[in-house]
Structures are given as structure tokens and as C-alpha cells.
């Protein structure tokens, strides 16, 4: 690992000030993506600004309509939260499928969403449940957040503070793990949200996306059969030695069918 300066931020403002003052500073959350990248010398930030000491960024708040999760809340905390299990069991399930117990003990929802790995799990939840990303500057709707491969709507010097999920009437997540890494080869969140039915997909494309045709079919009739015949085009989907674009397109239908079946 290359040398860098380490700073502990005491507040969001303090973190932004330290980030602004650094030559090539990076935010450090759980470090489960950033530190391996630095260990392999694929990244060499001049400064790391650690958010771990900011109490405001941690914790889960549930009211009648929404579940709001602080950016520094770990995957384990989301998975094991009784409140999340009650309000959005599919979200708790999803968090429990991320990586392994040690990764879940450190990795955070904010870090995962800032990173927007094409096969990360949370993006499917944000997209499928119609969540809102809250930053130090603004609120970004899920539909406007994911922009491309490792690319989001976040600007330089913009910090994720929390993510807010409207409580759905029903929702389910189904993941087909990539056999080696266990990241999502394809993961699909199907949800009946207060603003209608949504289908959020991760793993298949450069970033999370919705499948409007499936949403329409499920709105007409909520059953696994409604999506069984709908295939998405494989143009532009991810392809690697674990699965071709066609295979991934096919998996989207299979995972959507399974997700719909569990809550139909």
C-alpha cells in the first residue's frame, strides 16, 4: 500500500473540509472495497478521511412510511435489525446475502452505493424499492442516481448521508450469486411500493436498472407467470467468463419470476 495521510472526521462538515483540503483525498467508510484496491496499488489517494467517528451517519429510523438508514450503517446492522425485518424483510434478507460475515460487520450501505459496483446487491434494493439517496447537498431519487459502470450522480465533494426506503406493501429479492465471488451475477428486487410496482435489477448491466415491461405486466396481474414470458434484450449487458450477456438476460427473467413467486 502506498503512503497516505489518515484523518478522522468528527462531523460531515469536518469530513468535507478535510476532503477539500486534501490533494487527492478519499472518503473511508467500511474500507471493504477501498482498502483491497489500495493494497493492490490500484488506488493511491493522498489522504483518507474516515467517517467511522460520525455518530449522525449511523443507525436506522423507521416511521409509518419509511425506513431511513444512515450511510455508515453496516450490512450486518441492516440484516439483524428487528425493525428492518418487520418493515422491509426483503431488505434485511438482501443485506444478509452480501459477502461474508466479516465483510458484513464492516461494509456499509453508503460505501456500497457510492461505489456502485455493477454486481453489488444494494443497488437492486434502491432501484426496486424506489429509495432516495440523501447527500450533504440534496436528495437524489433512485431513478436518477445510477449513471453507469462505477458511476453515480454524486459530484466531487458530495457525501451520502443516508438512504431512505419507502415501506413497500410487499417485496422480495432473489440473487443468483456468481460462483466464485458470490457477488450478484444477477439480482432482482420485485416490489409493490406506494408509487406502484417496481422491478430493480443488479449484476446484469453496467449499473442497476428497472424493467418497465415487467412492472406493467405485474401491475396487470401480480404473479410469477406475468413475468415468465418477458425477456430483456442482451445488448449492452455484462459478459465475462462466468456468464454471457444472453445468459444474464435470461437470469433476469428467472430471478424476477422467483422473486414474484415468493410474494404473489
Amino acid at each position: 500500500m502506498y503512503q497516505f495521510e489518515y484523518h478522522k472526521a468528527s462531523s460531515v462538515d469536518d469530513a468535507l473540509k478535510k476532503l477539500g483540503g486534501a490533494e487527492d483525498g478519499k472518503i473511508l467508510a467500511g474500507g471493504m472495497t477501498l482498502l483491497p484496491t489500495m493494497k493492490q496499488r490500484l488506488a493511491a489517494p493522498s489522504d483518507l478521511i474516515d467517517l467511522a467517528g460520525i455518530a449522525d451517519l449511523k443507525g436506522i429510523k423507521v416511521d409509518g412510511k419509511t425506513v431511513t438508514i444512515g450511510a455508515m450503517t453496516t450490512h450486518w446492522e441492516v440484516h439483524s435489525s428487528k425493525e428492518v425485518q418487520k418493515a422491509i424483510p426483503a431488505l434485511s434478507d438482501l443485506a444478509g446475502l452480501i459477502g461474508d460475515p466479516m465483510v458484513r460487520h464492516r461494509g456499509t450501505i453508503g460505501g456500497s452505493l457510492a461505489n456502485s459496483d455493477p454486481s453489488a446487491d444494494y443497488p437492486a434494493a434502491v432501484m426496486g424499492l424506489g429509495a432516495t439517496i440523501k447527500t450533504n447537498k440534496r436528495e437524489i431519487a433512485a431513478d436518477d442516481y445510477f449513471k453507469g459502470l462505477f458511476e453515480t450522480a454524486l459530484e466531487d465533494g458530495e457525501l451520502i448521508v443516508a438512504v431512505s426506503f419507502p415501506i413497500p406493501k410487499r417485496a422480495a429479492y432473489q440473487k443468483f450469486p456468481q460462483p466464485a465471488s458470490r457477488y450478484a451475477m444477477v439480482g432482482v428486487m420485485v416490489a409493490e411500493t406506494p408509487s406502484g410496482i417496481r422491478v430493480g435489477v443488479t449484476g446484469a448491466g453496467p449499473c442497476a436498472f428497472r424493467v418497465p415491461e415487467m412492472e406493467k405486466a405485474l401491475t396487470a396481474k401480480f404473479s410469477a407467470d406475468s413475468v415468465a414470458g418477458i425477456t430483456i434484450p442482451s445488448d449492452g449487458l455484462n459478459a465475462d467468463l462466468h456468464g454471457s450477456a444472453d445468459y444474464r438476460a435470461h437470469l433476469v427473467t428467472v430471478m424476477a419470476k422467483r422473486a414474484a413467486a415468493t410474494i404473489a
Partner: protein
Amino acid sequence: MGKVSMTVNGKAVSADVEPRTLLVEYLREHLRLTGTHVGCDTTQCGACTVHVNGQAMKSCTMLAVQAEGADVTTIEGLAKDGKLHPMQASFKEHHGLQCGFCTPGMVMAGIDIRRRHPKADEKTVRHELEGNICRCTGYHNIVKAIMNAEV
């Protein structure tokens, strides 16, 4: 260089370290606690698993400075008064090791699994061991040892 202080196996320790010093390097090279192993560069193998404030974590993917003020337990901290920890005893009893390289991480992960799932069945243990790789592929006895430990 910056000063870092924490509790390791019940003892207060502190040292001057570079920010890039990993927790595992601090444990192995500064404190000479070489039971914690490094088996990969990608946070996948779990050989480096220790407990930080009671939770299993991969010490190869944590900076020593991130553990400032924390309570860390390594494999060396488990045996008490010359008596093996029940998880260690169970690994011995069920032949949960071959070359022994992955064993410290497996034992630390095993304790954490039973802490969260006191009655873990085989399926749960296998799923929970996803982050620990045994190159001797001796999973069968490792799973048996974790399930049957009298913790």
C-alpha cells in the same frame, strides 16, 4: 507516523505506526502475535480473522489506526490458564485442521458464528463460513468442530 492505542487480548498496547499499517501487520510485526495469518490480498480467505469489539473482522482489511481504542482478540487470547477455548478444543477433538494455516481464522470465525447462532446447524455453519477458505479443503471436519463446540 501516528500513535495508536488499543487493547489486545486484554492488554493495553500502543505504538507509533504509519497510517498504511494494516491491523494484521500491527499484530504480527509489532506485537509478534503471529497466530493471525495472511493468506490473500483480496479480503477473501479469512485467515486473518480476529475479533474487534466482539465481532469477527478481517484484520488484513482494516488499518491499525481504524482500531484505535478498540478491544481486539486474536487466537493467542483464547486459551485461559493453559486451557484451550472450547472452540479450540473442538477443532482438536474433530480433527478440524490439516496443515493448520487457515485454522486460527476458522476458530475465530467459528466463535463468532456460534455467538450469533448458538444452535447453528450444518447448513448455517457452511453458509457462514463463506468468507474463510481452507486450502487443504478440510471443510467437513471444520464444520463438525464448529457445530459441536461446547461454547
